[in-house]
């Protein structure tokens, strides 16, 4: 069972707040002892997902958690918005697919940077993405 040891949550609605979320994730990753490459992967994934949330979901909440699964330490970051939702999740997870002006690396790219990736989206209700990287 995954227990939350410590957590922080941030409202992210603007590009400036994406930077704050990134800095908070960096702070957690450092204190959990992640090496530089893993820290970089975590903040890059955070940047991509937070940007998606701001660009397509009208902003939302980022929750950063230090989790523990039977002694295994990890960092979980959850992005939740009340935006329009993603119509076709399967398409959204394909490399190169975008409805905006991006390159379409956001979701599948972020998934490659972490150990666990969950996405749940309901039309008209919002989207929730959760990533975990184990230390």
């Amino acid at each position, binding site marked *: 069972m995954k227990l939350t040891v410590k957590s922080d949550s941030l409202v992210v609605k603007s*590009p400036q707040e994406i930077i704050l979320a990134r*800095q908070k994730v960096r702070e957690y990753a450092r204190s959990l002892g992640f090496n530089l490459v893993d820290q970089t992967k975590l903040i*890059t994934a955070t940047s991509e997902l937070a940007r998606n949330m701001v660009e397509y979901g009208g902003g939302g909440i980022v929750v950063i958690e230090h989790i523990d699964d039977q002694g295994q330490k990890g960092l979980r970051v959850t992005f939740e918005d009340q935006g329009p939702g993603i119509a076709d999740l399967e398409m959204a997870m394909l490399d190169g697919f975008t409805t905006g002006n991006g*390159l379409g690396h956001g979701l599948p*790219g972020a998934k*490659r940077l972490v150990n666990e990736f969950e996405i749940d989206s309901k039309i008209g209700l919002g989207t929730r993405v959760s990533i975990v990287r184990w230390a």
Partner: protein
Amino acid sequence: MERIPIIKMGPFLLVTIQVDMHDRLVMALQEDLTEMVSSNGARGVLINISSLDMVDSYIGRMLGGIASITSLMDAYTVVVGMQPAVAITMVELGISLQGVMTALNVEKGMDLLRSKLKLAPEQDHEIDREE
């Protein structure tokens, strides 16, 4: 408004990105550089990203955009100083910075620009090589 400084060095423009760039700053840099390439007739742009702790698809797109715009204006752009952890992460994310020239550091970036523009190498570099 906050701006990233652009330094003129002979025929080149040097930009050192030292802050966590938010989107407006990125857009402003793109415009400022384009304006300066045009007004100074600069032939090369060096973008030093050694202080950047990550390059996401947004920043990657901005770097690619600057390279495309400057090439339309007859100037080359070289991105220098990428940290190893940033390079590893970018490849996994799927950003390849296609069409963007890169060099290990500012000095090597300058050499690359000089060779592209067929300019004589700087004197003190020449002495370095003979040693």
